[in-house]
């Protein structure tokens, strides 16, 4: 109590708290003497400091960048590249989110949905235009004379098809990019009938009859360049192989033919014989001469030839039989078939 009496001065207000504090720590205060003013106050509720802290922190937060933006700014400079949405640099009143009817969806601030969705804010039409202008010098024009599909096919008949893949991963490699396809029209390759036949046998099911395309696909090598070389090799090898004539190929006889050739068959001989006999001429042609005999010199001969070849090559059906019927009637000069009702 002596301390209290010593320190007590009229006019100074001491609240009960301080009194209590002094009482509890008499030993220390006696040692430090006059310094008890700087003593830490036990503030149980901690009201004062927290308010101060908050106020201090709010002061150093800058206002949004979007509020200071002029209306005629260049947007491409504000948002130059792909970036997640940031509300303080986009001066648009955007809202996103699903809410029950009658409520407003969440605004742009602290909205994770807007950050998730990929945005195209860096690709506005004027920006695309300026960027395209910048890269235009690197482009070249398509040659003007190649203005139609036919012209392209005539001058550049070989098609090479490759694929590039673009995906998100640490590596840019995609194993599928190695596949190379090459397409050529069979009619563009210079082949005679024998070589063509051999070529078709060599390529097998790589040839499509409907489109007349030969397609080579290679995926056996790990790199595209190798596959491309391999495809080129395949085409070259097949082509030159089809031109070489092996000894055993001469042994091919009429029974081995894969299609019906009218000129090679006895039918031709019969036709020619009949033609000469009907004209009362002597038939003294050899077999080779018969084979090279022009069918068009016989009236209705070409029609007959086509009908017979069709009948054998396509098989018997209503049209081929009917064609054959009319051709034979015309050839022999028989009356037309009467339609019986």
């Amino acid at each position: 109590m002596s301390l209290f009496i010593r320190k007590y001065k009229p006019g100074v207000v001491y609240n009960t708290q301080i009194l209590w504090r002094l009482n509890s720590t008499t030993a220390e205060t006696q040692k430090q003497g006059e310094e008890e003013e700087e003593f830490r106050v036990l503030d149980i509720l901690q009201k004062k400091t927290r308010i101060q802290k908050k106020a201090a922190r709010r002061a150093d937060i800058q206002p949004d960048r979007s509020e200071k933006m002029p209306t005629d700014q260049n947007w491409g400079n504000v948002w130059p590249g792909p970036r997640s949405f940031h509300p303080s640099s986009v001066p648009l009143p955007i809202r996103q989110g699903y809410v029950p009817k009658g409520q407003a969806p969440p605004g742009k601030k602290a909205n994770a949905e807007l950050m998730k969705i990929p945005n195209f804010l860096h690709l506005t039409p004027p920006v695309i235009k300026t960027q395209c202008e910048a890269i235009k010098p690197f482009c070249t024009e398509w040659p003007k004379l190649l203005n139609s599909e036919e012209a392209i096919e005539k001058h550049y008949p070989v098609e090479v098809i490759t694929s590039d893949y673009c995906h998100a991963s640490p590596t840019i490699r995609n194993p599928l990019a190695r596949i190379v396809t090459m397409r050529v029209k069979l009619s563009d390759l210079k082949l005679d009938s024998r070589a063509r036949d051999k070529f078709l046998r060599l390529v097998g099911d790589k040839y499509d009859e409907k489109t007349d395309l030969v397609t080579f696909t290679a995926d056996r090598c790990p790199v595209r360049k190798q596959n491309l070389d391999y495809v080129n090799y395949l085409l070259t090898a097949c082509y030159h192989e089809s031109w070489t004539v092996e000894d055993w190929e001469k042994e091919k006889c009429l029974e081995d033919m894969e299609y019906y050739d009218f000129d090679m068959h006895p039918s031709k001989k019969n036709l020619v014989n009949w033609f000469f006999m009907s004209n009362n001429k002597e038939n003294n042609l050899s077999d080779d001469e018969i084979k090279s005999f022009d069918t068009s010199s016989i009236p209705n001969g070409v029609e007959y030839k086509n009908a017979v070849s069709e009948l054998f090559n396509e098989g018997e059906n209503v049209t081929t039989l009917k064609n054959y019927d009319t051709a034979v009637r015309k050839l022999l000069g028989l009356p037309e078939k009467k339609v019986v009702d």
Partner: protein
Amino acid sequence: MNTPTILKLVQPLNILSKCSPVFASQFHTSSALCRVVSGKYRITKKRDRPLTYEMANPPHYIAHRKSWNSWNTSSLKDGLRKSETAVEDEFIRRFINGTWHGLVCSEVIIKRQFNHIRIAAIIRRAVSPTKMYFLIGYTEELLSTWIQCPVTLELQTVDSYKDVVFKYI
């Protein structure tokens, strides 16, 4: 003395699970996936549980009311590196949540573009800007060293967690 024996007991299991897929599938080594309760929150009595927009919509609303947290091409048809991407994403999420402890107010959004990983999140302004800049650099540097990709952090800051709360249940 106890540890070696325990190790011996444990090892055969590990080896078995590594060697044969049959054994690996027989044991449940991970926690169960609770389809009914995962990603869904129960209503409290006082109606004072704060939910963000993400939490307010259960998982089956993905692509309808909310979108994905991971954007990559691995999840697409014929995507490459499916499992690696999933594991890396989980690693990134845990690393961010641990590094920015108590500061992340939303889900961590991971976007992969080419070999570039962009990580977006909403962060509470509870630490000083200096510390935040340090953490950004630290996270980017460490993650890019581990994953061997350039990593960019795209953060948005809010005053307090209350800013991201969508509703109370």
